[in-house]
């Protein structure tokens, strides 16, 4: 779908863009490559580090009343309902548990599988920054290179770091584009000129468009990025737009600073 869309651009861009997209087959290959090292013969019966290593394993006699036999009719929804009921009644009879340990243990999140927690949020597809004449610039998912550097795509394409939340989700959603590359101006060429309150629109693959407004444009030494801010996994949804700026280091063919623009959502899809 992405490739088809990008086919409207020059061939060279399509090639570059598609090459950066993680493919399912690549993931499969990675999984397959790790099989042998992952499942060795694991010894059972190893004791806890804090336990007496010489002690025998606990005897676990089957119970006469067989209270453990699973109920095949209990589906997930029923389990959930049961659990909700249990939570209500647990507080009613909290005085019943008589052990002094009771105050030290506490129930936490359910371990039941919840499909809703595993639905991939719609990925960003294009970005527009009207005040910079950026119109529907393509956004590609990118990861990091082996040495840990963000894998910034072709200068005409914006990279969404897949290790960051999708735009609009809690935390810092990182979008990065070149200021220029090999003399070609990048999508974020004029990012440093963004004014506070400028609008940034991000269209997702499900057709929704979210609008953000710029709250800050900062220049950071690349060695002194405010990591807890630009890589935040949780907290207020924030769009973090990265490009380069500051002094150009001729020896390293690289800029010494990052221009980073922050934007907050002003509309929900």
């Amino acid at each position: 779908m992405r490739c088809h869309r990008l086919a409207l651009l020059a061939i060279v861009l399509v090639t570059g863009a598609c090459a950066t997209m993680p493919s399912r087959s690549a993931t499969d290959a990675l999984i397959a490559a790790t099989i042998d090292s992952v499942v060795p013969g694991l010894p059972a019966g190893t004791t806890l580090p804090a336990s007496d290593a010489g002690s025998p394993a606990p005897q676990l006699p089957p119970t006469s009343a067989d209270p453990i036999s699973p109920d095949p009719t209990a589906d997930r929804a029923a389990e959930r309902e049961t659990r909700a009921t249990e939570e209500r009644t647990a507080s009613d009879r909290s005085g019943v548990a008589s052990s002094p340990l009771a105050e030290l243990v506490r129930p936490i999140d359910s371990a039941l599988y919840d499909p809703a927690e595993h639905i991939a949020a719609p990925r960003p597809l294009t970005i527009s920054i009207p005040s910079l004449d950026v119109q529907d610039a393509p956004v590609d998912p990118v990861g990091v290179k082996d040495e840990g550097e963000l894998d910034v795509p072709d200068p005409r394409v914006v990279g969404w770091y897949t290790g960051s939340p999708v735009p609009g989700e809690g935390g810092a959603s990182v979008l990065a584009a070149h200021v220029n590359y090999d003399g070609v101006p990048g999508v974020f060429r004029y990012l440093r000129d963004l004014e506070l309150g400028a609008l940034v629109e991000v269209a997702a693959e499900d057709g929704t468009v979210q609008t953000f407004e710029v709250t800050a444009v900062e220049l950071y030494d690349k060695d002194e990025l405010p990591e807890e801010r630009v890589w935040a996994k949780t907290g207020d949804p924030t769009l973090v737009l990265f490009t380069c700026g500051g002094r150009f280091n001729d020896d390293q063919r690289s800029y010494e600073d990052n221009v980073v623009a922050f934007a907050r959502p002003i509309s929900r899809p």
Partner: protein
Amino acid sequence: MRSIKKTLAATFIAAGSLIAVGSGTDAQSEARIHLIHGIPGVEVDVAAGGANVFEGFSFGETQDLSALAGETLTGVQVKAAGTDTVAIDAGDVTLPGSGNYTIIAHVTADGTPTLGVFENDVSTIAAGEGRLTVRHTAAAPAVDVLANGAVAFAGVTNPQEGVVDLPVGTISASVAAAGTTDPVIGPADLAITDGQNLIIYAVGALSDGSLTVLTETIDGLGTAPTRVNTGNTPIDTEGGFPYLPILLVGLLALGGTGAVLRAQRTA
């Protein structure tokens, strides 16, 4: 290899009252110990030292035992809820004083209730990746775990586990009898999340169709990209390679050729 299934050991010291509980030592703050109920269709009470610690504990529920790190619990029993019928008699149990562990009440391959202890892999995960841990804690023979249709972990038996770090994204996972591809669990989508260890427990019994999965997540294991390099040319030398002029010249040349052709045709 780095992760080993451990069977909870009983110390069988002389039975007595609980000692030094809740003293708030440093070790307690370093440990993370969770207890998961992984036996479908049964509700239990958990007792230590002859008294219930918590009651009405049902399938899929989780208790945080971190505050008990390093403690020895005497006479640990898992009983059918509201009864004195003992399902698991674990004896005296010493919890780890530090580290990251999950204890799960589950069944062995032949269906016997047991307590399994797993040490969770909380080593650092590379930027852009998440960790998938799969644990066989079900009454079922050896299984293969398939991800996106391909075998990811082969011949896993209760209580083995497999651990792998993957690029973030969503995978479709299923469990099949070893050497087969017909799912006995799933397929189900699993979100591989940056810096997170997603732990999947296969639980229940194959014989009565109660096989399913429980999940647990441990966050904050990730690393950020080391650098964002977004330019290799000084802005003032932009246009060093004259793409636009070349394009314009090309178009003009094409247009000129067309004009010439038209001129020839009309001539």
